[in-house]
């Protein structure tokens, strides 16, 4: 199964997302933002980073990149699309997901191992988790505060579109402790924390068992691969 990872100018975690796809058993395909071509992939990852230096607003300029025409069309036709951190910001800027991300409440960049609760396990990217499962994956961002108007928040909650919620202290002031959301169809998911950095033993978050052994993020990639296989 081939999962495309799009590199924008200023993408940083693109090679990490490719590695995560490989560790999950998929074939990563490097895509370039300037091409109108998805190379026939089965799913898409918009990786983390500071595309265009976060100028204007994080993700705002990248959401107008040439390839986004194809991304929007693919998302609307049901292809699994995952936006991580800056990728999540792009998905909201492209109106594939509602709401927006603003500067962390603390005012600084925050890097930490973050506990999350999986709230929705029926999406393309979360179907391998147990409902309510608690996972730990790295969080690292400067503009991770999720906001939306009350009506949107009520709809997200009412329709079960909150995919992940922060546990413990809210790290960035996100409303309702929202860490990630899905569209109603469940194929487009965006989240601020970085699942691709919890996929390889030795390079993930600390766990009670061993240093840097956390691989909770891997399930997101295996979920998508299994979904594609089943589909």
């Amino acid at each position, binding site marked *: 199964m081939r999962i495309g990872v799009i590199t924008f*100018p*200023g993408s*940083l*975690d693109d*090679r*990490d997302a490719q*590695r995560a796809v490989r560790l999950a058993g998929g074939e990563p395909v490097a895509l370039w933002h*300037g091409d109108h071509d998805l190379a026939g992939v089965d799913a898409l990852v918009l990786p*983390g*980073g*500071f595309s*265009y*230096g*976060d*100028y204007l607003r994080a993700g705002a300029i990248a959401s107008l990149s040439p390839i986004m025409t194809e991304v929007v069309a693919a998302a609307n036709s049901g292809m699994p699309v995952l936006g991580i951190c800056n990728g999540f910001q792009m998905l909201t800027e492209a109106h594939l997901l509602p709401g927006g991300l603003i500067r*962390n*409440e*603390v005012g*600084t*960049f*925050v*890097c*930490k191992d973050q506990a999350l609760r999986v709230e929705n396990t029926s999406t393309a990217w979360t179907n391998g988790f147990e409902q309510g499962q608690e996972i730990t994956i*790295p969080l*690292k961002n*400067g503009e991770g505060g999720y906001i939306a108007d009350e009506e949107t928040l009520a709809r997200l909650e009412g329709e079960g579109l909150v995919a992940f919620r922060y546990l413990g*202290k809210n*790290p*960035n002031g996100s409303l309702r402790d929202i860490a990630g959301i899905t569209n109603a169809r469940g194929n487009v998911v965006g989240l601020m924390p*970085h699942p*691709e*950095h919890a996929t*390889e033993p*030795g*390079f993930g978050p*600390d766990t009670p068992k*061993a*240093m*840097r052994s956390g691989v909770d993020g891997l399930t997101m990639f295996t979920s998508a691969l299994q979904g594609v296989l089943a589909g």
Partner: protein
Amino acid sequence: MTAVSSSPSRPAADTVSNAVATPEREQPYAALGLTADEYARIREILGRRPTSGELAMYSVMWSEHCSYKSSKKYLRQFGQKVSPAMKKNLMVGMGENAGVVDVGQGWAVTFKVESHNHPSYIEPFQGAATGVGGIVRDIISMGARPVAVMDQLRFGAIENPDTARVVHGVTSGISFYGNCLGLPNIGGETYFDAVYQGNPLVNALSVGVLRHEDLHLANARGVGNKVVLFGARTGGDGIGGASILASDTFSEGGPTKRPAVQVGDPFAEKVLIECCLELFRGKLVEGIQDLGAAGISCATSELASNGDGGMFIELERVLLRDPSLTAEEILMSESQERMMAVVAPEKLDAFLEVTRKWDVETSVLGEVTDTGRLVINWHGEEIVNVEPRTVALEGPVYDRPVAYPAWLDALQADTADRLRHETAPDLLRKQFLSLLGSPNLADKSWITDQYDRYVLGNTALSFPDDAGMIRVDEESGLGFALATDANGRYCQLDPYQGARLALAESFRNVAATGATPVAVSDCLNFGSPENPEVMWQFAQAVEGLADGCLELEIPVTGGNVSFYNQTGDQPIHPTPVVAMLGVIDDVAKRIPSGWQDEGHNLYLLGVTRQELDGSAWAGVVHGHLGGRPPAVDLPTEQALAALLAAANSQNILASAHDLADGGLAQALAESVLRFGVGARVALGELMERDGVDVTTALFSESTGRMLVAVPREDDVKFRGLCEGRGYPVLRIGVTDGADLEVQGLFTVSADELRATSRVVLPAVFGQSGL
């Protein structure tokens, strides 16, 4: 690719022919930081007065910051005190943008640490940000992909209100720039001391990896090859940064130097990195040089000096952010995110295709010639015609007066022996916690949690472990470790010994992770070289470091000198930062610094002596600095590292933590805090064997010591190894529960340790996101 059209109001340039015709014109050499003698020498070299463009070039390139004119005499030792073993794995030594070390399997690592002290005081955010940017470009220039950064920070007293200004600015500047570049920040140092109040030290280290065949050097060879400037446009920022700012002391009431600070754009640099790596992959550059201090003056003169010796440049082809800049300003500008490449004419189109793909603006400025002259034209008129070596390599060399400090004997005579040693358990508990909660020993996550430590997915160790560690090869697990250390208090007491102590500590920190130390880079931060006592300190420190490296047979691969870190007559403590690179054949074998499991035996390796002079205990508990720093025996450090390596090869070490600032007490606390597993410890046997009292057992900073945890089943093997090698070893306890219990003295819960250590920085600098 478009040259900026000439502005109609452009003033007439000071051409070479004009300089010949007007030999007596007065020139502002003193305002540019040159002495009368230096100016006279430039006239002698040229056989005429310099043009204003030439004067600008000489003034920045002959500045202390660029020419190393006061330090050269001493730095030569690093090239002279060298054994054959030290050259074995050294692919590129001192004098290039950064040293390059062969780490095996066809891989090489390049690393360097550099200062950005003066700009970071004036404008902390941009100063620190561009410090990161500058050192990263040095690494790219070698043909390497940058893979990590570290920072060595020294601020004024934590309670001084101005310190918060500098800390917030510096931390957010590093966070902003480093995070946006996508480079994990894997370690570093943070110290607070009033001696750095007006002269904070912001040193930045970057490290990169490359395949042997990808090595690039900064030289301009091949007559007819094109000289290409690419990256950000040139603006009016950082003019005179090297000469006026970094090569002078701060003084009260002087003019503001803010315009001499550069402004950084990390997005432009990130794109530049990827663009350069694609150019390297396509083998499209013959030589490459980053633009840092002294900008185009430096890049053109160094590339030409290191190549065929001649270059012709049309300066009006430089793409400008501000079209009103004069030729002299363009030559001196230190605008960031720029690179200069030498490109074969037949590869120019392919080169431009890559820069276009990354939206990197590019301009062909000129070409390599065989004239032996660097000639620069400005709108058709010749404004520079010099022999490039006289600018880049043959600057003045000074043998500055040195003087043994008048105050040093008295300082060394005032030892810590007169300080009271408490014996009451409650008072010792209080001292232990006051050390743990002192700004220099307290938890630094307020700073480090603002840095991305995960990006690139190869971080095997980062703070708070003893060293950072990065995987180089995903297949084999080959990796490197990096630790940086300096102790200004020790160096104030004895700079020769202080430099060796920094070397020993960085060596020990790397060894504690399971890696083998192989190479050193340094950043030597001192006061004014025009002060003979400072010059003496510098001479001593360099000698100590060079002697120490020869003894360890570890080469110094490069580094940086930062002088003039003084305000008025008050210099900083001498602060030679040593960065040690180690190699590990598989990062899966790394050793953590703290305890993860209960029931492991705790061993103290090495001997504890009453060495409290200059210690954290003397400073924090008694406000004292005097005496002589701890002894350091480098063969002992080598024996300790070899023992660690042998034990780790048998996979019998659960953790290892170096003993340094704060002694055994601090090492115990940090080992608990790493994962929250406690321990029961007894000091009686240690005190008896080494003949020391309890204060010494807890707080002495004797070298050659390490605290290791060993699973019970490997106990016999471990003791056997130590005995076989004759290394002093003592079982001092066992990991257990969630408290640190020092039997007969005190018990502190992990929660109290955490609260004590974690509250310090946020209490002063505000809440964090944790």
